């Protein structure tokens, strides 16, 4: 009875994995679909297989707006994860190591993004920018992303700080190292994998974000998810599959490295 039940659950799990991964696999597959010429334009199907071809990737390479969007998303992601790394690390360090008042208030602020929908955060930031006449562009997107990405670094670093051996720091201090030296030579190297894992995750979250970027962008600044979204609105095409595949590879690889770093240490 129990064995049958176990087999049943196993089969169920396999079906769930197929449902989770099949759409992604099909998306990637059809990014390599051959197109046909119709009315002087190359068009292609995302559901009927014609043959293997790299033409959509070739087209991407020659489309400047893709490169601009990829560049913008990368710049936003890198700066966002740098801000998150610094602010997330120092605030986690302060909360674990120092007896600061208002600790609970801070935790609540870090948790609120989880309990209010992202779109309300996005539109509230837009109103803030409009009210204070802040010029919309790359900077305003970066700020919007950092407000929710700090929590990723904060959570990972706080966990590492809570369960690590402080005697190493005490040893360094008793051997004559200054507190600053102790921090840079002992504490930081121990925290480094956590900071890196959190920052990579912050990068992928920023890199894949559509909502906040759409609300806080200005003067024609377009990110990769925004570009994919606007292209989907004007009709599906293997070209979109190709751009989507590239974003899947980038964020998937970084998230995997992040996971690998944090599970190894």
């Amino acid at each position, binding site marked *: 009875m129990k064995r049958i039940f176990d087999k049943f659950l196993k089969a169920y799990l396999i079906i769930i994995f197929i449902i989770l991964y099949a759409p*992604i696999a099909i998306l990637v597959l059809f990014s390599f679909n051959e197109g046909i010429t119709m009315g002087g334009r190359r068009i292609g199907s995302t559901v009927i297989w014609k043959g293997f071809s790299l033409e959509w990737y070739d087209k991407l390479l020659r489309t400047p707006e893709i490169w601009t969007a990829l560049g913008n998303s990368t710049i936003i992601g890198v700066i966002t994860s740098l801000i998150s790394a610094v602010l997330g690390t120092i605030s986690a360090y302060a909360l674990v190591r120092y007896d600061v008042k208002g600790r609970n208030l801070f935790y609540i602020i870090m948790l609120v993004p989880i309990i209010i929908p992202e779109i309300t955060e996005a539109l509230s930031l837009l109103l803030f920018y*409009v009210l204070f006449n802040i010029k919309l562009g790359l900077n305003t997107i970066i700020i919007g992303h950092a407000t929710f990405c*700090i929590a990723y670094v904060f959570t990972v670093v706080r966990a590492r700080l809570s369960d690590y051996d402080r005697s190493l720091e005490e040893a360094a201090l008793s051997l004559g190292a200054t507190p600053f030296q102790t921090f840079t030579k002992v504490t930081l190297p121990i925290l480094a994998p956590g900071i890196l894992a959190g920052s990579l995750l912050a990068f992928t979250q920023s890199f894949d974000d559509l909502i906040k970027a759409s609300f806080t962008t200005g003067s024609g600044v377009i990110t990769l998810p925004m570009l994919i979204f606007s292209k989907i609105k004007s009709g599906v095409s293997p070209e979109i599959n190709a751009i989507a595949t590239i974003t899947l590879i980038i964020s998937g690889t970084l998230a995997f490295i992040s996971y690998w770093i944090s599970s190894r240490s």
Partner: protein
Amino acid sequence: MLSDPNSKLNLKKLKGYLLIVPTFVFELLFFIIPLIIVFAYSFSKIDSFGRITYEFTLQNYFNILTPEFTKTILRTLAVASLSTVFCLILGYPIGYYIGFKEKKYQNLLIMLIIIPFWLSFVARTYSIISIFSTNGIFNQILTLLGFVGDKPQWLYNWYSVVFGMVYNYLPMMVLPIYASAEKLNPQYLEAAQSLGASPIKVFFKVTLPLTMPGIFAGSILVFIPSVGEFLVPELLGGIEWYMIGNHLWIIFLAMGNYPLGSALSIVLIVLVLLITVLYIKYFAREVELGF
């Protein structure tokens, strides 16, 4: 060197505050204050030229009470609740199964559950279009299996929206359930069984109550993003199945009617908070968010 222990203590405290202040100010400035601004804007006026005047009015909230918006709000709550229930039904056996697996398989299986969640949300939602479009893969499979006749339109329905939600948010349900199942001591189950309880009774009397914190946390983690969802109804639902998020997008980015949009988003926030608080108060006394 003699130093006053009190001043040393204060210096240490001061350092702690210095380290926390930058993040605190950042979140206050770009996260908390903007939310207060939305609240203020929701009581402001807009004239026919689109100019906003800061005069107190409740008109924006009255405008939300119109049938069109009320319908949207009810539709949003229905879709989000249904998605949460489906995630629970589909996700519970997964979390349960992985939670009782040997440690070496657990990490791998949980990673397989999380991986899709790391991947671009836009790309994942887009991938469903090709599966369920009229000539899509799903209908092709149906034809291969011998179903002939009119190809059904799977997209732009409530079930395609719910499918999209479940597809995207299932990991949020599985993770906390897995966490609570993994902590469950198998000896409890053995004890209940050796005392003569049937497997079904063991499940309802022991396993289910002990995994409740995971169920509660998972439900909250699925419900909240579903209520505020924009992309899934936009791509898989269409205008007929627009939710609050889609209206907020149009009101803010196409119409520029900030007062009305602010009022609608305040309604959304209040609904989410109210439902979450009531849910925790009456059902979920122990919520473990699992992080």
